[in-house]
């Protein structure tokens, strides 16, 4: 089941604002300031594909992931899963949603309970959400471990007995336990050793093919995103500034921020001398984001209206959206 336009997940004008600063009374006095972590993003994820959200720390990509996982309540907006607003669901509906949408986290040292055996870690979602018996759970856990390249006997072990890559496999097995439709991958390889990363990326891509899974990948490493994703959205300060199919985006980046991000990425060969656009300063605080286009203070191609007028999304190329004054029709 998907929505009318064929998307599994649709995000509409999603916002998350955190109240910051001021004392406990500032709320009553009306002096609250807001950190706009996510400030109105829209995106569609087709079933069976991988959507990549990229950006630097503080751009709101992880907050977006948390909202999709229902770990964070949106301030405004809609999350449509199979055409239904996930934020409007009743208790049973929410439970269903949470089984269909699972997560693999960045740090396999922190995301597995050190006091639980692997069978407990991988079997817990089954215990909580299904009526399976202990025996059934045990054999299912064995199957899941085999699926991610581990051995069933390893279910008796504790997380500390595994290497980083193996732990991440356990995390993947857990996320698969309830036959989810969407898995949110939050930096799934960035904490792993380089020689292990390809193993995990290939595993995730194989599982996707086999089970028809849909992925939302949160990452900051552009090459990883290029390898794994079908479509990519680039975020800057809580907003999506550019979105396109993977090859199109890399071959033809339009937004000045996307270009700077790509030029700052490390080369894969010493002879690969790419033009270096080094941005001035850092990402500004989302508490008081710059007026107009959030990027204008650091933008090498800034024009007059950038500091005053918020740019609209345009499509200079089919299915390649960009939010930038340079591409006004």
């Amino acid at each position, binding site marked *: 089941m998907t929505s009318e336009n064929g998307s599994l997940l649709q995000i509409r004008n999603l916002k998350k604002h955190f109240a910051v600063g001021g004392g406990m009374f500032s709320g009553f006095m009306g002096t609250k300031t807001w950190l706009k972590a996510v400030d109105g993003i829209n995106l569609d994820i087709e079933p069976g594909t991988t959507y990549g959200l990229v950006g630097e720390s503080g751009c709101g990509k992880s907050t977006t992931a948390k909202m999709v996982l229902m770990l964070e309540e949106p301030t405004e907006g809609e999350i449509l899963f199979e055409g239904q607003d996930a934020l409007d669901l009743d208790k049973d509906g929410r439970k269903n949603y949470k089984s269909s949408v699972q997560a693999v986290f960045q740090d396999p040292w922190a995301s597995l309970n050190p006091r639980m055996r692997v069978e407990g870690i991988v079997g817990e979602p089954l215990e909580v959400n299904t009526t399976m018996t202990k025996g059934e759970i045990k054999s299912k856990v064995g199957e899941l471990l085999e699926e991610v390249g581990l051995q069933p006997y390893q279910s008796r072990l504790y997380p500390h007995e595994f290497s980083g890559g193996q732990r991440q496999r356990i995390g993947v097995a857990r996320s698969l336990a309830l036959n989810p439709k969407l898995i949110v991958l939050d930096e799934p390889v960035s904490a792993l050793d380089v020689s292990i990363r390809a193993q995990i990326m290939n595993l995730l891509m194989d599982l996707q093919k086999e089970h028809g899974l849909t992925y939302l990948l949160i990452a900051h490493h552009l090459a990883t995103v290029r390898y794994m994703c079908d479509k990519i959205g680039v975020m800057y300060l809580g907003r999506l500034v550019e979105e396109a199919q993977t090859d199109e985006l890399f071959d033809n980046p339009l937004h000045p921020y996307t270009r700077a991000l790509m030029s700052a990425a490390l*080369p894969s060969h010493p002879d690969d001398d790419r033009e270096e656009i080094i941005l001035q300063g850092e990402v500004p605080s989302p508490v008081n984001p710059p007026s107009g286009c959030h990027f204008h203070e650091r933008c090498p191609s800034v024009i007059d209206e950038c500091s005053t007028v918020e740019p609209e999304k345009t499509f200079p190329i089919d299915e390649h959206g960009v939010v930038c004054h340079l591409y006004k029709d």
Partner: protein
Amino acid sequence: MASEERIGEIVLEVKDLQTYFVTRWGVVKAVDGVSFNLRKGETLGIVGESGSGKSVTTLSMMRLVPSPPGHIVGGEVILEGENILELNEKEMEKVRGSRIAMVLQDPMTALNPVFDIEDQVGEALKIHEGLKGGGLKETVVDMLRKVRIPAPDVRMKDYPHQLSGGMRQRVVGAIGISCNPAVLIADEPTTSLDATIQAQYLRLLRELQESTGVGIIFITHDFGIVAKMCDRVAVMYAGKIVEQGDVRQIFNSPQHPYTEALINSVPKMEENVDRLYSIPGNPPALWDLKQECSFADRCPYVFDKCRESYPPTYDVGEGQIAACWKLEENVEVAELAETQ
């Protein structure tokens, strides 16, 4: 990148360095016969995964290995002609921070939050150069100007939290070069910085090298950093250097299967790769190393000989050396190999 005139005489020679840790599981040979050298103005990358021994190598060079359990059991570290492993602790204190210095990539944790910038940049100058008063102040301002901190005479009164991340990075850089060291070690933590911040940091290091001629050793797990920054590269695996050579040569024709696998397993931003090569298995446990080649279990080219003994280091030519049995028939054993 590397122009020939930029690179001068040898400033650091590490010969057959061995650093072992005595643990209850046995002796861990964290660094097991590592040799390399570094020239003035040159950048050497030491690449390896966690547990490969790259960080213990630098700690040994700084004589900062926690002891016990760690012991430098053999080898030489010759800094500007002097074997610093023979110095006593008092003499070593004069070397650290002045002739061989370290910069940490993460600017958030590298500075002490309770001292102002002037104190932190000035500390090494006070100790090593004996500067004080107005002269010290002037030199600190100079250093900060060198790393392009705007209004350095005002900003040096700031505390780290008052500076932006980029400026903190610059301050850390200023501390690193304050005493004009011969060797600067840049140790990169495994968790990476944002790309644009990292690009600023790398440019800073390059500028410092251009202005001072310092030799830089980059400790990293990322071949991207090597491609961008380094003239030469040494690849470490399980406590040993398995391959070493000119950066282009290593990228164009890696001779050790581990180097080749690492280069092929990293996704590229420039092109769409269908399927990456993935290295099977995990790095070996260092307390449990056998006689065989430590990469044998993961190597796609493994054959009988690999299981029998650790290969010598072969000279592939043009300064490239690699420790792999498949080179046996074609090339000569490198001179360094005697130390294996």
